[in-house]
């Protein structure tokens, strides 16, 4: 038994937490631990995802992106070691998410934690597990506005605030002065809507939440119709939105639809009638789709899964990439070290790289974290001081029952 060095307690906290992991107390550059031949072992990081529960559809999309990303990383390797991702299920609930994070951080000892989907769960994990440690938390999907108040909690998806502003401008520009809003009754829906309401100058004819996973939203739809507004804004998820579109269609309601990011997706197109949404405008955070890296990603994705990627897959993909680069750039595989590198490997300084291979090469060639600027498939990934990425937004319009990009907005 020995007392750990009191001198730099804060620095040791992190390594203490992951003490049972195999890379716990390395003090040199990654790979030479006191426990010996770790250099061939994989780097283990963790991910909390909604594998079951109400957001499991997002979890599924994430997992596709994650798998693809791991393939890419491990084709190249990080310091000749593999990257391994331990995925735990949050059951889409706080309790499950916290338990999952507890296991990852305090049992598996991961210094880097990707998670979670829902904004509430991400915050819960941050507050109760990550906050006082050095572990890096990077949420893959949370767009809730509250996360901005927690600089230690990074996220790949941009804050919903930019979206809300963009939507308010867009609807205004289209000449509507009255809008009916319905939002999903959780942190995501509520905070985005709050931001929208703040930014919106016109009238709000209807503004009500709806619960997730209901079997029918005809009450909501009819109330929106009743409200008299011609512009309808949906801040909700794909499944809920598809239900609403179908119900509006079979009730014969007509309106100009607008939507926040989570209402778009191939599955929405597939499961709604032709022409039911034509003209709808959606603001989504996005990499410029004409970029080459996105197109490679998309075609790889399609080859693997037989469908177009969603932005959720892209976020998860970039989370893994960012983690991998942070690990490679760090001196050692500890939370403290990764805190140092995670923002910088994709930050605006340095040479732009669009693939892991290229970015990794720069580092391998002796570059520091600031010498590389990884450009993700979901965007340029530049975290600001609040831990939010500087987002690029794309305006999609539904034309002939397909999404067409009709414009870009910078965050």
């Amino acid at each position: 038994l020995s007392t750990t060095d009191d001198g730099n307690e804060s620095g040791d906290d992190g390594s203490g937490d992951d003490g049972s992991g195999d890379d716990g107390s390395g003090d040199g550059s990654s790979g030479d631990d006191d426990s010996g031949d770790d250099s061939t072992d994989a780097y283990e990081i963790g991910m909390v995802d909604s594998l079951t529960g109400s957001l499991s559809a997002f979890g599924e999309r994430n997992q596709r992106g994650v798998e693809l990303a791991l393939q890419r990383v491990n084709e190249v390797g990080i310091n000749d070691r593999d990257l391994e991702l331990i995925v735990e299920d949050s059951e889409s609930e706080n309790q499950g998410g916290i338990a999952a994070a507890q296991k990852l951080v305090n049992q598996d000892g991961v210094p880097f934690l990707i998670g979670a989907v829902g904004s509430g769960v991400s915050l819960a994990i941050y507050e109760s597990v990550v906050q006082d440690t050095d572990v890096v938390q990077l949420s893959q999907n949370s767009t809730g506005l509250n996360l901005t108040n927690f600089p230690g909690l990074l996220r790949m998806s941009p804050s919903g605030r930019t979206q809300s502003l963009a939507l308010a401008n867009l609807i205004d520009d289209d000449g509507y002065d009255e809008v009916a809003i319905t939002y999903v009754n959780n942190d995501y829906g509520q905070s985005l809507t709050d931001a929208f309401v703040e930014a919106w100058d016109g009238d709000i004819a209807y503004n009500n939440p709806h619960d997730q996973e209901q079997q029918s939203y005809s009450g909501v739809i009819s109330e929106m119709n009743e409200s008299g507004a011609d512009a309808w804004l949906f801040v909700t998820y794909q499944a809920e939105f598809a239900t609403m579109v179908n119900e509006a269609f079979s009730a014969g309601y007509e309106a100009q639809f607008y939507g926040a990011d989570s209402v778009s997706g191939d599955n929405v197109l597939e499961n709604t009638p032709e022409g039911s949404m034509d003209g709808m405008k959606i603001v989504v955070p996005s990499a410029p789709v004409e970029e080459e890296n996105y197109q490679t990603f998309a075609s790889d994705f399609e080859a693997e899964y037989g469908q177009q990627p969603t932005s959720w897959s892209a976020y998860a993909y970039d989370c893994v990439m960012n983690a991998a680069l942070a690990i490679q750039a760090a001196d050692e595989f500890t939370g403290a070290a990764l805190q140092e590198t995670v923002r910088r490997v994709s930050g605006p300084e340095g040479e732009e790289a669009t693939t892991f291979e290229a970015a990794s090469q720069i580092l391998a060639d002796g570059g520091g974290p600031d010498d590389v600027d990884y450009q993700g498939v979901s965007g340029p990934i530049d975290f600001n001081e609040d831990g939010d990425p500087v987002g690029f937004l794309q305006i999609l319009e539904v034309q002939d029952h397909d999404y067409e990009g009709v414009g870009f907005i910078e965050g």
Partner: protein
Amino acid sequence: MSFLTDPRGTLGDLTRPEAWVLGVSVAFLLLLFVALLAGALGPTYFLFLVGLAGMYALLSFGLNSQWGFTGLINFSVAAFFGVGAYGAALMTADSSPIAGGFNPLVGLIVGLSVAFVLAVLIGIPTLRLRADYLAIASLGLAEVVRLVVLNERWLTNGSAGLRGIPSFFAGWPVLSTFPQAMPGLRLEVVPGSPIFLEAPFWRASLNVLLVLGFAGATYFVLRRAHRSPWGRVLRTIRSDEDLARALGKNTYSFKMQSFVLGSLIMALAGVFYTHLNLYVGPGDLDPITTFYVWVAVILGGSGSNRGALFGGIVIVTIREGTRFLNDFAVPIDPAPLRLLLIGILIVVVMRYRPQGILPPQRELIWPSAVDGSGTPDRPASGVRERKRSDDLENRSENAENRSDDRDGNGPNGGDDDE
């Protein structure tokens, strides 16, 4: 666990299932201990699990004192849990929209008081209903509570939830700074796998201390109540309410007492949860918690306090233990696999231990009345597994009494505890 909190620890007179459970528990504990020493199990994580188990044990105690004692089918466990959690969080959290910043003890009191009021409010209309109806009425009212918490933002912060919650011991002398004050320790039992005990570990130990305090006190109260005439009236109501009424028991009042008591215990679990996880959101009121607690109580054995304790531990083992199964590569999508495993485990336990793992075994008579001579009450062999030979012996002994000794003071010797 069961013998840690069971101060009497009467090893001498265990029934077969008890011995079995004890054996398995000891083996399991040893395994955990070895894993801890070998560095295979993170001590901080382990303590978190113990805290979680304690929380589920508390919830199970609460439900057991409603369902197990009185037969009240309460499907609003999550609501009371949530009310306790929110009560504590709203008082203590710095993000609280109504108050906040109070001492956690205030939160404790407020959480329990709100649960008390809610229990009475839910109890008044539903406790007159037949058991099945109470079940769904409580489920419905729980949903109402959840929706209120979710939608009334001025009161609860809505879907954003509450954060910035202090530790339960914040503001206490010594304990509030204990985690930071403790030196970081490094243990190396198995060479190469050192164990670190630092601030998060000490924080987790405080949580465990807290939950052991809560659960221990609850267990003490419930055990005494269960063995008392009070508990007996509840059990009579459970089996035949009319009989209790005919014998002059005010069954509505007893049902209310049992309902309130159980609800308070659930709220206590909620208070603990708040300070364990430091974040509370409307999702914590989801009915899934209710189902898990039911599973815990039934798995443990309805009506048995030790069963409830054990069931709470088992449910955490099932829920969190299955995470480790993901470590083994399986050919199918791992996502729903855990759900599948949990489902299978529930079915398997019901199949092989249908009365629960530790069903009530003993007669429940006030201790001093049965073991006045100081001997511990032996298991009432008649209750579950009466041995055939015993039975015949007693009966033939009695037959002799019947024909020879009419005054009936003879037969007493055979079956009494004294």
